[in-house]
């Protein structure tokens, strides 16, 4: 639950982030929701699913959905290469912590990000849906995108699931 809290409110001035390359952009994810980084493993295609979450992988005996943030950001999809990695994350979704995996073109490093250097999301001129971006920072002369993972997964989780669960709980 700690991780959940940290994503919600970035109060601390410095947070640990893992930086990665995605579709030509640098992105930073809070390191405390990161569970592990994997070399690409066999992916099982899920028919009838959305392109965002089209596969399943086996992470140490646990079946984890593999998602593609490029779909959320409207980036073109590329074939995996030697640098491609899968990141296993624990994310809050509808009040529960869900384990998901995302693909990254390349994982760079775990670094400390000074939150005070973050800029607000500009209202114009942004290529990405603004609700999916938490902030934009700068790292060694390059822009660093902080995606709002919670909002993204909320958006791509099938509607009505939460309601159905409440009903069944009765």
């Amino acid at each position, binding site marked *: 639950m700690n991780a959940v809290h940290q994503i919600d409110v970035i109060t601390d001035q410095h947070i640990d982030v893992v930086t990665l390359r995605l579709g030509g952009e640098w992105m930073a994810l809070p390191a405390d929701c990161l569970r592990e980084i994997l070399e690409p493993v066999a992916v099982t295609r*899920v028919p009838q699913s959305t392109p965002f979450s089209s596969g399943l992988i086996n992470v140490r005996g646990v079946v984890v959905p593999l998602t593609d943030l490029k779909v959320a950001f409207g980036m073109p999809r590329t074939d995996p290469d030697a640098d491609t990695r899968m990141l296993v994350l624990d994310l809050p979704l509808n009040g529960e912590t869900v384990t998901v995996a995302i693909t990254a073109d390349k994982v760079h490093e775990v670094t400390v990000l000074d939150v005070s250097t973050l800029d607000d999301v500009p209202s114009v001129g942004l290529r990405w849906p603004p609700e999916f971006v938490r902030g934009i920072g700068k790292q060694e002369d390059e822009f660093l995108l902080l995606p709002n993972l919670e909002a993204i997964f909320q958006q791509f989780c099938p509607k009505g699931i939460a309601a159905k669960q409440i009903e069944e709980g009765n």
Partner: protein
Amino acid sequence: MSDQEDLGADVYRQEASELVQSIEAGLMALETDPDDRDRINAVFRDLHTVKGSGAMFGFHELAMFVHEFETAFDRLRQGKVAITTALIELSLQACDQILCLLDDPKAGAAASVDILHRLQRCLDGSDKGEDGEHTPAGNAAEGCRVTFRLSEDALMRGHDPEGFLDELRELGPTKVRALVDRIPPIDQLDPTACLIGWDVEIEGAVTSSDIEAVFLFTRDDMTLEIAPLSDTPSAAKADDNQGLDAVATSPAPGVGKATGNTMRVATDRLDDMMDRVGELVIAEARLQALAQCSGDATLMAVAEDIQRLAAGLRDSTMSIRMVPMSSILGRFQRLIRDLSATLGKQMRFRTRGEDTELDKTVIELLADPLVHILRNCADHGLETSEARLAAGKPTVGTIELSAEYAGAEVVITIRDDGRGLDAGKIRARAIEAGLMAQDADLSESDLYRMIFEPGFSTMSTVTELSGRGVGMDVVKRTIASLRGQIDLESEPGHGTTVRLRLPLTLAIIDGLLIEVGGELYTIPLAAVEECVELPESHVSEHSNSSFLNIRGGLVPFLRLRALFDVTVQPTEYQKVVIISSTGARVGLVVDNIIGNNQTVIKQLSPLHAGLKSFSGATILGDGTVALILDVAQLVATGRMIEDRARRENAA
């Protein structure tokens, strides 16, 4: 209170509520067979245990209450009071009160007093007229002769014949004689068997109940004869317990034996164990795959050993989690009894297959749907006595619940002999609720299925009893969430049958591994009826017929290649797997059938919960993930095809 005491109290609460269930069951059995002395004694023993342990764990109010209850019941035991329905009713209320006191010892003191008071009055009313005090077994002045033999394994169970003799000696001056006629020659003698009987003459005013009290806890497993001292032993009055000889040679089932070697384990530990076994099965499959690949004979031998051990471990872990149906049936006896009173209908509840075992989780989740179905049977199904009489049926309605194994499934059937479903009414209601078109022509079974639709049951159609906001749709959903199936048959005027088919366990199932376009999927084997080759005429994806002829029956089929958007070229010989659910069949066209595999079921994440064709996923021997097909959903899709075809034909 310290933690340890808390723990003790919790264990006691659990034990006591189980005992109360057993008492309830005993009471209800007594209602039908009031002369069953064994039962009376069993109920008395249970009460005694509740009282004894209650006092030990600090449930003093409860112990006091049970003590009074026990005192009242003792008069029954001594046969001074006849068992009446009113008495049973009050006793059942007393059982409820025990449960209340378990939850909150301080609550309901007034209710306790009230129940005890009424119980007392009821007992006084039905007193057989004998003087309450004592019924001397023989002539009081002369005393009596007690002849008893313990069961052969009495010593093994820790009974002490010496202790019984000592207790008898306390009743008065005694002469004890050992009966050694059953002792074999020394070379055949089993020194641990209790073969000696005793013949005890007790002088003075001794009542038979005093003597029976001595043997209270061994009564079921022994022979006991009590006769007035003046009589000769041969003319001794046999104990009032019929069939005693049979009891003496074979100990009563359930008593002693079953309680001897059990222990209580927290359920989450079992769940934890099951999870680990699941992981072991997956790891074992991987090992197996590796061993096959390497071709190393030693490795393969080890892998086979591990496979055997894992299978054994899986079976025993699952068997630990198995609970007999009887653990929830007691509740239903009570339910029907209460319903009978509330609805003013005479009904009888019969059960068969109480020994059938199901996974604990399944049993627990099953209780509520079953209650709902039984309520429906009692409320809507059965008619009033007058209506039954008019229809030429016995006045007492019967609801029967039976459970039996069928392959890897358990089939639970609930049958009533009531009026059956009213197709006309269901039709009207379904149209009113907008579930079907005004002029739709549905078969009878399709019409019956309407009652499982959400929105069918409303407050206007259910009474206060059946309507707890749970419709049959919730029942169906619960059963489906257990990966079970529900089925309905009804014969107007003769009753309704609800049939539930449930998997034995939730965690691991047998699956049939199939291949579609190079991808592997698992079908629950229990749903698979047969596999056939896809006939030549159907091979082309453009052939118009969507039905297969399976031995004269038309079965709709689905091409999984199309359903799953597979673009790879199909294999030359496609196969059809026929699966069935709730009586309907559908064929699935697949590329290849790989074979059986142990499927450890993993839930899909919320991201994939919206998918209709899959009920879960599993991990295969090579570590990849395979999806498990949702049989009920696919069959429903097949039914849609069928409906569409029927409409097209009609048009």
